[in-house]
């Protein structure tokens, strides 16, 4: 039976982790490679890096991070943030990323998704959808949540599936950082609409939220950042909790 996946996400800025793991045994708490290794040793099903480097001159730092991580972690590695072109995707894959997550570029130029999924295969193309509820529908935001595109998130999700995306990473902007749980209404609407796997993101504050993302949101995978970083819970605890709630996980 296919297992539900737990994906810890690390925010990386200028090649260093922002909001690092609160572990005492780390030699260098800012090194994404060391933190990714702790997660993969702890049973993470995949690792996600979100590059939030603002300036173009520091963009190169992520390639070095990905290259070093892929030599240490032997679970799938997804990298997102600032990916604009087929060439950017190519570079990340060559450095050892297994999947690349594309957000703003997918909205502004959907051809990037068509071209890259043809060129590299759908399996490595993840479209990141940042959505916010407006009246009774959800709209897509780009540029790290700063710009409202006005595009309907559900229609966009379907369009991205048709363009060749292999997975969707759906973040509720309303919930992100609030620790009140995923927007499971948004998740279940999208999962019902598309046939590709959906990764739920945004708002996890406790282990029950992970359970809800899978049971109520019907997500194939759940992504979380802060509950793991600050040592509140380990990936292992999260898996054992899901298992105790009858959700199949890899233990």
């Amino acid at each position, binding site marked *: 039976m*296919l297992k539900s996946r737990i994906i810890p996400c690390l925010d990386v800025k200028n090649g260093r982790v922002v909001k690092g793991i609160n572990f005492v045994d780390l030699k260098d708490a800012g090194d994404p490679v060391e933190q990714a290794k702790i997660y993969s040793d702890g049973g993470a099903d995949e690792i996600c890096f979100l590059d939030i480097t603002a300036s173009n001159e520091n963009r190169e730092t992520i390639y070095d991070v990905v290259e070093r991580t892929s030599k240490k972690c*032997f679970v799938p590695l997804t990298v997102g943030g600032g990916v604009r072109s087929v060439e950017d995707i190519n570079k990340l894959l*060559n450095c*050892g*990323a297994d999947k690349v997550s594309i957000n703003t570029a997918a909205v502004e130029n959907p051809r990037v998704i068509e071209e890259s999924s043809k060129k590299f*295969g759908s*399996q490595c193309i993840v479209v990141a959808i940042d959505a916010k509820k407006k009246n009774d529908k959800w709209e897509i935001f780009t540029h790290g949540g700063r710009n409202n595109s006005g595009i309907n998130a559900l229609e966009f999700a379907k369009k991205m599936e048709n363009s060749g995306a292999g997975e969707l990473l759906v973040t509720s902007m309303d919930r992100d950082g609030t620790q009140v749980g995923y927007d499971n209404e948004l998740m279940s609407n999208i999962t019902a609409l598309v046939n*590709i*796997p959906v990764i739920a993101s945004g708002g996890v504050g406790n282990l029950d939220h992970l359970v809800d993302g899978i049971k109520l949101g019907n997500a194939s995978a759940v992504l979380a950042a802060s509950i793991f970083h600050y040592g509140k819970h380990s990936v292992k605890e999260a898996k054992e909790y899901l298992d105790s709630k009858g959700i199949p996980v890899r233990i």
Partner: protein
Amino acid sequence: MNVTIVDYNSGNISSVINSFKEVAKEKIKIEVSSDLDKIKSSDKIVLPGQGSFKSCVDALNSIDGLFDTLNEFTIINKKPLLGICVGFQMFADVGYEETETQGLGWISGEVSKIDNQNGKFKLPHIGWNELNIVKTSQIFRDIKNKSHMYFVHSYEFIPKDKNVISATTDYSSSIVCSVEKENIFGTQFHPEKSDKEGLKIIDNFLNL
């Protein structure tokens, strides 16, 4: 010992290279090449593959003499070869992804889309799933039945001779995920992304 990972522009092979180098350490030399002489002189070969069946077959055929060299290595000289994902699917006679495409024909059978029961199951089949080991395979030495492996695919290889199947996995139906036929090994899952158990499978292949 020399092991060559065949680099024929079949998509992203960085993870395959990294994992084989990690396992091989200094004992075994891992080469990444499409050079025919290098392949011929190798002790073992790894055939990766990502993207579509057609794109991989086309990429392989676009390198002059590669098909014949692989055929000679595997079928005539009977040296060990491990195919991964689409590299494994290409063992078939024919694949139906994009359009009907002839495969390598090493293990009779076809590659067709997974029946997802009218959308009841998501495709691609992505994530960790369990091995049902159905026959002893040399690459499963010290691998427990029901071990988890990482999958990502929408098409499945259906071999005619069921005796070649070494493991299946359960999704919308029972999917063939590993074969062993004499010197030919193949996995639908990605051992290079399957954590310690995956690395053990690579280790088993390198130490055949």
